[in-house]
């Protein structure tokens, strides 16, 4: 282990109380020809070391845009961040200098993308691309970088890593490519990994392998993990807590067991009810009516109101806050919140 890695280790072990990442009131907009698309409208979430936060949402819910804002890889313009804070270990990344931010990106926060084939450079060998991380951030020699690359490939269990280090991305299968993406994210031993639909492009049997590997490595390094997905099954398998997004806002947060057992937002409930269940065979599935909103014209009030079975006048007039969710007798439920005026009714009359 070289000295650079040692310093990084020491920095990580520096005591810091509170969550690793804390996103507060984040807004992201895109200026388009047709107007301003409000992709993220006040998102709050936090992740601690060793914790897995799943961000669940459909396409256009703002889940990926939030992640890109955290990584600082949004194209600005057309994107802009009119408001909000993204605090990493207490320091706001949106106000810090470019160079300082660059040091966090990749070293402290790494990202795994959905489509490994397009995320990897097709004309460079995977060994070169993995080694690049060490050369750029740690300033090691070429030979050393190659050695590190082999080590990483072995860590993500790519068979015959020594022989395959000079292979190109297209020579690997989908599952193996996603392992290389994971290896790349792990290279500098980050504190936090953001995985944007890491297994969506993979087959189920390979999906299970990759998810297991990710969970195992997360536990080994005590990393925070933000898992962005639309798959309720994957979430149930790995997450500790869940944030459900709709039209750029978090509509419900809850620990994973509670969310599936007792959703407190009609959207979450609708999603869970629309999963085909055994006892419903041959019956009509529950379907949320209507379509996700156009981000150029988000409905006034609660964005879900045109599709909601519980919508009242208040839902069309006011935007609901993320209310704390409690038991019927008022006992607070830790970590739970619902952005619905009728969360009580939704939670209690199942």
């Amino acid at each position, binding site marked *: 282990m070289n000295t650079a890695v040692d310093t990084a280790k020491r920095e990580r072990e520096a005591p810091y109380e509170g969550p690793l990442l804390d996103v507060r009131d984040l807004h992201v907009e895109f200026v388009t020809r047709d107007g301003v698309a409000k992709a993220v409208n006040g998102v709050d979430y936090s992740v601690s070391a060793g914790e897995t936060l799943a961000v669940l949402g*459909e*396409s256009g819910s703002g889940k990926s845009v939030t992640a890109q804002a955290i990584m600082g890889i949004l194209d600005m313009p057309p994107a802009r961040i009119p408001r909000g804070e993204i605090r990493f270990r207490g320091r706001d990344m949106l106000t810090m200098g470019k160079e300082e931010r660059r040091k966090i990106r990749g070293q402290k926060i790494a990202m795994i993308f959905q489509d490994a084939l397009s995320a990897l450079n097709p004309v460079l060998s995977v060994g070169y691309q993995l080694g690049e991380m060490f050369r750029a951030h740690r300033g090691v020699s070429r030979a050393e970088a190659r050695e590190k690359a082999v080590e990483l490939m072995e860590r993500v*269990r*790519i*068979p*015959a890593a020594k022989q395959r280090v000079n292979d190109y991305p297209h020579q690997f*299968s*989908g*599952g*193996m490519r996603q392992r290389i993406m994971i290896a790349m994210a792990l290279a500098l031993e980050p504190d936090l990994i953001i995985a944007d639909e890491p297994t969506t492009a993979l*087959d*189920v*049997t*390979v*999906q*299970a*392998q990759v*998810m*297991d590997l990710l969970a195992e490595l997360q536990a080994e390094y005590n990393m925070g993990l933000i898992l962005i997905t*639309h*798959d*309720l*099954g*994957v*979430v*149930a*398998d790995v*997450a500790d807590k869940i944030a459900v997004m709709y039209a750029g806002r978090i509509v419900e947060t809850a620990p*994973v*067991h509670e969310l*599936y*057992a007792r959703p407190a937002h009609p959207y979450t409930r*609708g*999603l*869970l009810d*629309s*999963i*085909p269940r*055994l006892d*419903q*065979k041959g019956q*009509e*599935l*529950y*379907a*949320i*009516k209507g*379509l*996700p909103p156009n981000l150029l014209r988000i409905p006034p009030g609660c964005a879900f109101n045109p*599709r909601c079975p519980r919508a009242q006048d208040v839902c069309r007039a006011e935007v609901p806050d993320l209310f704390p969710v409690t038991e019927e007798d008022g006992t607070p439920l830790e970590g739970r919140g619902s952005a619905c005026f009728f969360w009580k009714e939704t939670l209690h009359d199942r």
Partner: protein
Amino acid sequence: MTANGASALGAAVPEEAAFTQEVPRGEPILEVRDLIKHFPLTQGVLFKKRVGAVKAVDGVSFDLMQGETLGIVGESGCGKSTLAKVLMNLEPATGGSVRYKGEEISRLSGAALKAVRRNIQMVFQDPYTSLNPRMTVGDIIGEPYEIHPEVAPKGDRRKAVQDLLDVVGLNPEYINRYPHQFSGGQRQRIGIARGLALKPEIIICDEPVSALDVSVQAQVINLLEQLQGEFNLSYMFIAHDLSIVRHISDRVGVMYLGKMVEVGSDAEIYDHATHPYTQALLSAVPVPDPAARESRDRIVLTGDVPSPANPPSGCRFRTRCWKAQQRCEVEVPLLAAPSWLDGAASHDSACHFAAEREIGQAGQSGQAGESGQGGTE
């Protein structure tokens, strides 16, 4: 080759009228036997030398019954989409037979082939690329009538298209809009309306909901089920989402590397699977229930699906199978009900060691699979 050459025989091509008779419910409307589709691999630029073949579909047999939904599941590359294309006659088969109402379709030509094609329609996976962006919705849905004018005479077409829009739950006034003005779910409804236009008997749905948002998938599934009842359709439903396949299917076929490895009713496959691949596939699917996280007995397969250009000898699954023995290497298992099983476990399964999964033992077998590191990679 064999399939095309057969049409030259020209023997007793049936009249179009031959296909108007109805098949009673529960009788086979489509019989597929030993269907083969190989794509040649060539080498060289000028003198293309054949060096092998991608065996996309390699001997698949099944029946599609009138009025039923047959689900086909399998991972990418297992040949399920190629199977759909061959059944649609979009790709000529390399071998085997497809009989529609008892008539061999590769032997048909002219009017008879046209009639068959009218009766077998398809709904595609991606509603963004399967609709021509320069055509209006009315033109897209009405285009089949250009080829089959007998279904809707010229004057009635606009009305027919508007009726179809209404049937699939879209506003008939949208007839002059373009595909980009619709969302993904609405576009898939347009694709379904086009599939219905010629009043077919069979619709092949190739991953019809996998490109859609979760909240919209249920709407499209409900629509497909409602249409099946209304128009007495037979579906072949290709998908990789096992829970949706179970919901919609009467019978399910599991494919692996160009072969059908197990076929049975939905309960037989999901609750009494006897083929190791089916068992692994079912156990790997993430279940949307966090309570099941600890209790789940997952079989994690190692490695990837081998290349269909060079499939393993014997049983194609043996390189990833924890039950594999010497016998699996030399002897291709046949798709048949194993004689040593009874009850719900006794359905077609192509495994020499077919058996229902014993939950206690499965954990061990999962580990056994893991120790066989990357056998196929």
